[in-house]
């Protein structure tokens, strides 16, 4: 199978999720006796080919153009579609990031092929099968592509490992054919949230607070812990609806569905909609003063106690451990 991976960069840096996707692409190509390539778009991005080669790209289609300096689904959609045609892609891989989710359907619709969202598992023995959560993880569906038909996938970040499998990473300049008039929806500016930590969708550690946080000012104790662990701050819908934190932090069925290595739930009861969004986390810590809270049913470790006492001690202990290590 010929596999093409869209490699996402912002500010000239490749996303980790793109290297994950590249590794998946390499495995898929190897398992089916095919080849794997990447496509990267931006300005001054040819240097990124090396890292993609290391993760398994034989070729890297590079669209280096001022038209790609700012992401737009119009320009990127055309260019990735073009790369897919030039390469003869049979499988088209994206990361299920904000950009990947916006871009993938533009490309697959252009090519007239199907797209499977948020894939979290791939089986390649005896035919190719994909596994994906539905109902925000309340169930998992396993599906097979129709034989001989090309398809697209978006891959959930933080699920697939980045593997070293060096290939040539030969740079091929993409003859993309995009002209300025193609860009119909134009990004005027990006407002980055001030002093924000990582986004929950990308973080490997999430420290989340719910109604038990009592007010917006208390989120700083979660931020301190998150910062200490290189993580992000999440929230329940109750906290978001109370206006304590913006909706982009909400975890759950109508927020973000996450699978970090570590999820720390503070003052969150564990309603079904919240659990759906986080119960595939590898390790879950629950801090709640109610021993009957449903969150303890999914927790790997639980502390029954007042979060205002526990969290600062937790931050200190992590600091101490790092200092000692």
């Amino acid at each position: 199978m010929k596999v093409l991976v869209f490699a996402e960069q912002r500010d000239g840096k490749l996303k980790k999720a793109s290297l994950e996707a590249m590794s998946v692409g390499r495995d898929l190509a190897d398992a089916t006796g095919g080849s794997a390539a990447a496509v990267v778009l931006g300005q001054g991005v040819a240097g990124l080919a090396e890292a993609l080669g290391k993760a398994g790209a034989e070729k890297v289609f590079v669209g280096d153009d001022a038209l790609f300096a700012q992401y737009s689904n119009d320009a990127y959609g055309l260019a990735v579609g073009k790369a897919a045609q030039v390469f003869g892609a049979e499988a088209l891989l994206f990361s299920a990031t904000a950009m990947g989710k916006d871009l993938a359907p533009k490309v697959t619709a252009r090519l007239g092929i199907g797209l499977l969202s948020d894939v979290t598992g791939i089986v390649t023995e005896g035919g190719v099968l994909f596994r994906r959560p539905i109902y925000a993880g309340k169930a998992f569906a396993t599906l097979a592509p129709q034989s001989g038909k090309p398809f697209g996938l978006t891959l959930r970040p933080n699920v697939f490992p980045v593997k070293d499998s060096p290939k040539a990473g030969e740079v091929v300049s993409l003859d993309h054919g995009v002209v300025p008039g193609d860009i119909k929806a134009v990004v005027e500016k990006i407002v980055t949230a001030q002093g924000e930590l990582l986004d929950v969708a990308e973080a490997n550690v999430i420290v989340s607070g719910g109604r038990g946080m009592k007010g917006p000012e208390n989120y700083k104790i979660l931020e301190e812990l998150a910062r200490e662990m290189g993580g992000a701050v999440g929230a329940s819908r109750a906290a978001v609806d109370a206006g304590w934190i913006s909706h982009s932090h909400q975890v759950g069925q109508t927020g973000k569905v996450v699978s970090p290595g570590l999820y720390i739930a503070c003052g969150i009861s564990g309603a079904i909609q919240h659990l759906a969004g986080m119960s595939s986390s590898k390790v879950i810590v629950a801090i709640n003063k109610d021993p009957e809270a449903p969150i303890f049913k999914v927790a790997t470790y639980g502390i029954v106690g007042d979060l205002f006492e526990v969290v600062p001690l937790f931050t200190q202990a992590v600091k101490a451990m790092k200092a000692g290590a």
Partner: protein
Amino acid sequence: MNVLVCVKHVPDTETRVKVAADGLHLDLGEANWVVNPYDEYAVEQGLQLKEKLGGEVTVITVGGDDATKSLRQALAMGADKAVLCSDPAFEDADPWSTARILAAAAAKLPCDLILSGKHGVGGDNQQVGSLLGQLMGIPVVTVVTGMDLEGTSLMLKREVEGGTEVVKASLPCVISCQKGLNEPRYPSLKGIMAAKKKEITAWKAADLGLDPATLAPSFQLKKMELPPPRPAGKILSGEIPDQVKELVKLLHDEAKAI
């Protein structure tokens, strides 16, 4: 200003799912079916635009006859017209087929703007709005949390990782609506009564010029399963400071999470 709003009829978020006897589908027998929560933002946005600029709001769904319930709900909120695209050939419609059905229907309806939800809960695809826009050859802006319309020019805010993008677009286009865009209204009693009298147009594959053979899903379902139950966890005990010490040790030594 005529607005077309795509609504999906979905099991509500309280639903506990079971695997059906065939091992391929979910048994949703006990679910309460509602308008997809994100589509409520889309309906509300359509109504606000109509109130400001005149025109009509048409809601459309691809689904079974039971999806009429969600169309009635949108009509009760204040939508003017409703279209039900229902046909045995649509039963297994995946996002790509759904978008093609919607595109065929949209071509028969006057619309300056198409609104969809950010994603349909359950299927969790986050595709249909984008596919539809691309099929119709009009711009698509997804995950929109803010919208200003001046003439035919739109300023939109959309959610991206770690910030907000401000995007400029013009009509016609497709916009997928995210929480934050507005507060959806509840239908009034008067609205509910009026909705009962509003007509729902029903279109089948033939009405839309669609060949059922082309609507087969792109991926074949092989298995449906529930996630494995999580192994029982450890609830720590003792004085809080000691529990915290133990927690950090467990996270480091046992779980290797820090």
